[in-house]
């Protein structure tokens, strides 16, 4: 158990280092997929099954494809990665500082005894059978998300809407002549209209 835990953690960290240090951007995307796969296993060990599978679907299935598209669109050749890592040190340390604050906040405010995993918010539906057996992760999430945090849920919807509109505006600046087939014309065509020898 703890052996698998350490395996996932060490592999995630190693491939995370390889993401930023590999010279070829395609290889770093592949290592990014490896990071996410390891994190998925890690979340499975924490019994957070739904989030683990969502990580797999969203990050591996979608985000990495997007990164591949970005790399191919920018037409980046293999970079010479010299001593450039220190050039970004200022902004890196800025991001790292806030990340550290978040992690510290999480560690010092998290209730490790019980807490998140066997969490039943809705006392109206508390049945002792489900408390004893533990209800699945996804049902806990569903109980919380659509009733108590519905405002965040709707804000997520608005964020998705904004991202949809923004991506359309950014990429559809030029109108291409799209040649759609005219179905009625195709159906109404008969042999007398065609070219003959």
């Amino acid at each position: 158990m703890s052996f698998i835990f350490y395996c996932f953690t060490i592999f995630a960290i190693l491939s995370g280092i390889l993401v930023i240090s590999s010279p070829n951007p395609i290889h770093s995307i592949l290592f990014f997929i490896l990071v996410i796969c390891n994190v998925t296993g890690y979340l499975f060990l924490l019994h957070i099954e739904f989030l683990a599978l969502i990580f797999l679907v969203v990050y591996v299935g979608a985000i990495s494809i997007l990164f591949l598209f970005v790399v191919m669109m920018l037409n980046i050749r293999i970079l010479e990665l010299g001593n450039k890592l220190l050039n970004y040190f200022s902004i890196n340390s800025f991001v790292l500082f806030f990340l550290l604050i978040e992690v510290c906040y999480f560690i010092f405010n998290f209730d490790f005894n019980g807490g998140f995993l066997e969490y039943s918010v809705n006392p109206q539906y508390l049945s002792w059978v489900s408390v004893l057996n533990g209800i699945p992760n996804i049902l806990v999430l569903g109980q919380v998300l659509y009733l108590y945090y519905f405002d965040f849920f709707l804000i997520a919807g608005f964020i998705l809407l904004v991202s949809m509109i923004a991506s359309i505006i950014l990429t559809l600046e030029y109108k291409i002549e799209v040649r759609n087939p005219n179905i009625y014309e195709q159906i109404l065509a008969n042999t007398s209209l065609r070219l003959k020898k």
Partner: protein
Amino acid sequence: MIFEYLNILIFIIIATLLSFIIFFLNYFLILREYDIEKVSAYECGFEPFEDSRNAFDVRFYLVAILFIIFDLEITFLFPWSSIINLLSSFGFWAMIYFLLILTVGFIYEWQKGALDW
């Protein structure tokens, strides 16, 4: 319990082994004859003019990002559909409003011609 995933671990191990076997069996069983012409770059009788990695159209990216957005929408729908017998009508209507917001975006992209190919 975590041991319920033992089957999946066995499947992963079998899949990994099988892919390794298929890959390396190919390497060992095939007849290999080295030739300088086989490894030379060849493109319709010419030496290749440029790098084969072309920058391609941004529309592929647009389709991918729209795919991600609707993928996330389905992700939000999945816990809802599994808990809907325990939710009150408030939870039901929350999802309906969420879907309405995204339908506005969908109509926008349809009318804008982002889905035309």
